[in-house]
């Protein structure tokens, strides 16, 4: 019997995109149910009563929450195709370590950049973002071991963890005129990003850069009100943090 897979999400959310990428890698068919980040549905609150956030994967009626936990679930539940997590426990630990660094330390710098009130403060944070990219370049060299992706020959957990942000990073390049990755400072990551973007499981997941810029400008106009109405909503905070 075919299993029933539903994804509660918003198509412009990088956290939701992670799940879509993982489902595509495993060729899993699913129903995408668009949730409005500004107006949480009863369905979402029932599926994720503790954290109340998208994405939520519902597999045969059972909800799984938190994007990277969902990615691991997809890897466990569907063992067709290449593994998303590395097979070696030490490599798995490294992948989880860098994914946590990206989510907890590096990407939140973009929010601080937006909140910086002085030019000096802004420069300091920009420097921190670029320092983080130096670390991630080294992580790429170590994890990929000369192969095209963090996961080796195939797109893996860490590719998804970092790659999901690439769409929005391209949008911010247009919005604030900063180039995040280039051939001189991050040759490995710059080439990786192009490969990742054009991968068959990835390329149709993230919205076009121009669409993301449009979404950002629309939300920017309502940014302050959003933060008042939905201070806990990760995706709204995410959007609100993008300048």
């Amino acid at each position, binding site marked *: 019997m075919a299993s029933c897979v539903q994804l509660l999400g918003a198509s412009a959310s990088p956290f939701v995109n992670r799940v879509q990428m993982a489902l595509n890698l495993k060729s899993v068919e699913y129903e995408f149910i668009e949730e409005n980040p500004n107006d949480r549905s009863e369905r979402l609150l029932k599926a994720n009563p503790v954290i109340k956030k998208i994405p939520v994967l519902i597999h045969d009626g059972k909800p799984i929450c938190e994007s990277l*936990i969902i990615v691991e679930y997809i890897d*466990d539940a569907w063992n067709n195709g290449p593994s998303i997590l590395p097979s070696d426990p*030490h490599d798995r630990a490294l992948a989880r370590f860098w994914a*946590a660094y990206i989510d907890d330390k590096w990407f939140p710098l973009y929010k601080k950049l937006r909140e910086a009130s002085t030019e000096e403060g802004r420069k300091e944070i920009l420097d921190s973002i670029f320092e983080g990219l130096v670390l991630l370049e080294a992580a790429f060299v170590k994890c990929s071991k000369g192969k095209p992706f963090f996961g080796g020959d195939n797109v893996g957990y860490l590719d998804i963890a970092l790659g999901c942000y690439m769409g929005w990073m391209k949008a911010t390049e247009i919005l604030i005129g900063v180039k995040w990755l280039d051939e001189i400072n991050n040759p490995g990551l710059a080439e990786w990003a192009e490969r990742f973007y054009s991968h068959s499981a990835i390329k149709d997941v993230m919205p076009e850069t121009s669409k993301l810029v449009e979404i950002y400008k629309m939300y920017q106009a309502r940014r302050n009100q959003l933060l008042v109405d939905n201070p806990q909503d990760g995706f709204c905070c995410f959007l609100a943090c993008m300048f």
Partner: protein
Amino acid sequence: MPTNEELLLLDLWVSPFSTRVKIALAEKGLSYKTQEEDVLGGKSDLLLKSNPLYAKVPVLLHNGKPVVESTNIVYYIDETWPSPQLLPACSYGKSTARFWADFIDKKVFDAGRNIWQSKGEELEAAKNEFIDILKKLEGAMGDKDYFGGDKFGFVDVILIGLTTWFYAYEKYGGFKIEKECPKFAAWVNRCKERDSVAKNYIDPERTHEFVGLLRKMHGVE
């Protein structure tokens, strides 16, 4: 364990995160050496080399290769020495365990810190938030003996080490977990009967003293 396997834990005696790793190692019957780190005085070259980004304990070195971040270390231990399994066997059970481990890591220690670092109204708010978190965890356990169900498992390992600091939170927060969250208190006592926990559980009076020192360092007293 084969005799050519070497396990070294870079440790701090009072760290609830180190305790977590020690309990996991004990559950697997693994023998290991420890190196106590003077995190306030001067960190060893080995620690700085093994964990260059954060320079924090615990770090587990397995045949010289480091694994950092305590929850990651517990995953590593469970995956490298699968018997007895700490994570549930089924995919859904694993994802539920990962979810609660993540929730615990994001909430518990920080909420505890908010208690011992604050006074007055802020302290009252911090205490209420902490109790609320324990109530959510009670909800997750339901009417089972452990987070893992009938068996002590992954989430139990992740959480029980953190409870070594709860006596300090109770003292500074002016509350008793036994009164506010009796199911939670019963779970702690049940876990403490296990060898792996009993042998590694830091004396709460000593952690209370240590937290007192931290308060002085942070200018709370």
